[in-house]
């Protein structure tokens, strides 16, 4: 690795710094006074000694001011082989070497830099993007201070099993760090602060090492179960000339084919499903690609069985007759429960009560067979407990859910005889009627308080759908606890929905929706999101990125002027303690002053509508905002709404 000691750039920096300090000292009054009052000694000049003679007569120490190659350029060449469309960044001196290379060597094309005013915004954008586009974005930030800003979004991405490709800057060699902030911004092991929620990380010490680790990182991140990875980029490596260009080589990326489950286990599962009277398929982060939903529909229709979509991805059409996602009975009455890429299978088979004595009980039918199929068990770490409670099962099948579904469907088809087919058809008809009843029940419930102000969440959700329903829409975020879109909207395309935050870290919805909008933009889809006001306040600067990079998105703020989930929790505590609940708005609300999100949006250069509190004005405001979005710009509608 080249040494900073020999670095022309650093030597030049030190030279300039010294010159600057000397100049500044000369200007200070104290220095001027010292000059005037200096004792007059040795008026006659000294005879030059051997050192001074050498300085005056020998050629200068090697100190070039330009370079013709740089490690950063090579790094960009490596990144280009990985087919990144964008690099989301918050700029930082620790990666200035590769930053400049991305601009001038890479021509700011694949990846193109997107400027984000916070690292958490950048990572959440990458999370939202990957869930729509199916591949990671590159993300870059400061190693120490930037990575700490990014940490929450990385945790969400980890819990959500989404690949994010993070690169951070660091100065490994202590003697190469400038005094002051470069020390505060350097670490021996910068990834340590987020390693609990990374799948893999490395800190290369040579350019060849970087090339191999960069390709390896991409491969690891995109192999199911997917998760964020991190490469720490030494500043010396980025900035300095390439010492041995002829020896550098970029390895080829060979992606891992997602593993299909064991054939014997699949056949065993098929027998259980075909023999069952009331099987149910529960899915969470199942669909990795557009094919995932198609495969699940085929399996469900073959069995004519209930499907409960937990919603971690767009797994199953919301109005499909077999969709029983809002019928708890579909699980409780099942005799075979198959969990597909479930994160929390325990929750599917048990109820939990949050009272003074927290309690739980099994809700599944006695004797019901429990089976899991997925990659969840392949990537679990100790510290953070996102793996949820242990659920005992009768058969745990390892393998990628989406990749395994076609074989399962074929195995099921082989076992169905005439009698079973007839029984399946009868079962399917009953489920279809129940699904229709669920939809009608939701519509009826939505009418209560329809004309009230603040605007009901049901009406808000219905009006948004009424505005976008004829477009090629993609809903990429909803506020906490708002299940109205999933009850009322017709989700039927692979990109109609892309799941939630993963870790429940607030501040996800706005930036992740923008990342999803970026992915949807090239397909001409209309991106829409409904985000809470509390969530918005974590990362409002996202709107500037939307405006600056002209990313169209219709963003609706469900403005209930509270962190409402927490409001209800504190209220529950006050109730238990019989202390009255009239003051539980302290610390849980966002009022006095009320926040005008439309004005905030306009301040960032985004079209803003609202605050809308009259339900009759909501539809027209949404239509105006839609027109802006269809012209290629982002727009925000602030809706003063009911809590839930």
């Amino acid at each position, binding site marked *: 690795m080249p040494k900073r000691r020999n670095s022309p750039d650093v030597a030049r920096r030190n030279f300039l710094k010294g010159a600057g300090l000397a100049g500044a000292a000369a200007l200070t009054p104290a220095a001027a006074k010292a000059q005037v009052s200096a004792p007059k000694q040795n008026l006659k000049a000294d005879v030059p000694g051997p050192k001074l003679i050498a300085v005056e007569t020998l050629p200068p120490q090697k100190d070039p001011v330009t370079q013709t190659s740089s490690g950063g350029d090579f790094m960009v060449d490596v990144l280009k082989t990985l087919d990144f469309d964008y690099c989301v960044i918050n700029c930082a001196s620790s990666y200035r070497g590769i930053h400049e290379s991305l601009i001038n060597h890479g021509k700011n094309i694949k990846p193109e830099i997107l400027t984000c005013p916070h690292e958490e915004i950048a990572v959440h954008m990458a999370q939202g993007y990957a869930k729509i586009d199916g591949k990671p974005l590159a993300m870059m930030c400061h190693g120490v201070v930037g990575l700490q800003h990014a940490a929450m979004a990385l945790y969400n991405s980890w819990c959500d099993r989404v690949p994010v490709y993070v690169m951070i800057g660091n100065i490994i060699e202590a003697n190469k760090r400038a005094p002051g902030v470069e020390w505060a911004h350097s670490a021996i092991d910068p990834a340590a602060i987020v390693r609990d929620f990374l799948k893999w990380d490395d800190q290369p010490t040579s350019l060849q090492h970087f090339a191999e680790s960069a390709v390896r990182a991409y491969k690891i991140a995109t192999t199911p179960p997917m998760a964020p990875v991190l490469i720490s980029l030494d500043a010396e490596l980025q900035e300095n000339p390439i010492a041995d260009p002829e020896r550098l080589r970029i390895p080829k990326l060979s992606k891992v084919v997602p593993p299909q489950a064991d054939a014997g286990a699949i056949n065993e599962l098929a027998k259980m499903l075909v023999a069952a009277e009331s099987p149910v398929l529960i899915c969470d982060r199942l669909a990795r690609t557009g094919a995932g939903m198609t495969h699940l529909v085929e399996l469900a229709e073959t069995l004519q069985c209930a499907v*409960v*979509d*937990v*919603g971690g991805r767009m797994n199953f059409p919301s109005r499909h007759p077999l969709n029983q*996602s*809002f019928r*708890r009975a579909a699980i409780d009455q099942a005799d075979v429960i198959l969990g597909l890429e479930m994160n929390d299978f325990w*929750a*599917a088979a*048990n*109820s*939990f*009560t*949050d009272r003074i004595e927290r309690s*739980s009980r099994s*809700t599944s039918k006695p004797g019901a067979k429990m089976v899991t199929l997925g990659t969840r068990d392949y990537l679990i770490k100790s510290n953070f407990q996102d793996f949820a409670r242990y659920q005992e099962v009768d058969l745990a099948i390892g393998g990628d859910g989406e990749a395994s579904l076609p074989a399962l469907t074929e195995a099921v088809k082989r076992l169905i005889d005439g009698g079973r087919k007839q029984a399946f058809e009868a079962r399917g008809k009953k489920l279809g009627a129940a699904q229709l009843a669920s939809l*009608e029940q939701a*519509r*009826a*419930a*939505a*009418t*209560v*308080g*329809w004309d*009230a102000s*603040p605007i*009901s*969440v*049901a*009406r808000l959700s*219905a*009006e948004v*759908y*009424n505005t976008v329903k004829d477009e090629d829409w993609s809903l990429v975020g909803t506020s906490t*606890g*708002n*299940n109205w879109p*999933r009850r*009322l909207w017709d989700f039927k395309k692979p990109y109609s929905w892309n799941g*939630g935050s993963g870790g429940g870290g607030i501040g996800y919805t706005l930036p992740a929706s923008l990342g999803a909008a970026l992915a949807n933009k090239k397909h001409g889809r209309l991106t829409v999101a409904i985000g809470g006001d509390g969530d918005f306040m974590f990362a409002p600067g996202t709107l500037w990125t939307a405006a600056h990079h002209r990313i169209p998105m219709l963003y609706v703020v469900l403005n209930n002027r509270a962190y*409402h*989930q927490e*409001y*209800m929790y504190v*209220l*529950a*505590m*006050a*109730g*238990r303690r*019989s202390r*009255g*609940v*009239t003051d*539980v708005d302290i610390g849980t609300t966002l009022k006095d002053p009320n926040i005008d999100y439309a004005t905030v949006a306009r301040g960032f250069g985004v079209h803003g509508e609202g605050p809308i509190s009259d339900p009759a004005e909501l*539809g027209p405001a949404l239509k105006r905002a839609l027109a802006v979005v269809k012209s290629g710009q982002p727009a925000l509608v602030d809706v003063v709404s*009911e*809590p*839930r």
Partner: protein
Amino acid sequence: MIRVPSLLLAAALAAFGAVDPSARAQDAPRSDAANGQRIYLADGCFTCHGRSGQGGNYYGVTPILAKTQLPFEGFKMQVRNPVRVMPPYTEAVLSDKEAADIYAFLQTLPTGRAAKDIPALNN
């Protein structure tokens, strides 16, 4: 999206609702709906059940209370010693009279109209 651990409180209340609905309003003590509205909005009922009694979401869907079919005694029982996750409201913080006022207010809230008459709900 289903939140599986949460049994719907609506189910429990629906069981209460099986009691003769004609007995509901007249069972309540003399009450003041206007005061009930004030308490409903001040004492947090609206946070889970909505200002229009339209219901909401807390550990799953919370029930619609507009013109509740619960008899007053069933309503009071749920307020004092709730099933599932609803916070209790003891007499120390909510008197029987105030509970009756809230109940009276809920009876003034309009139920929904026919969904088929609302175009935005027929997409």
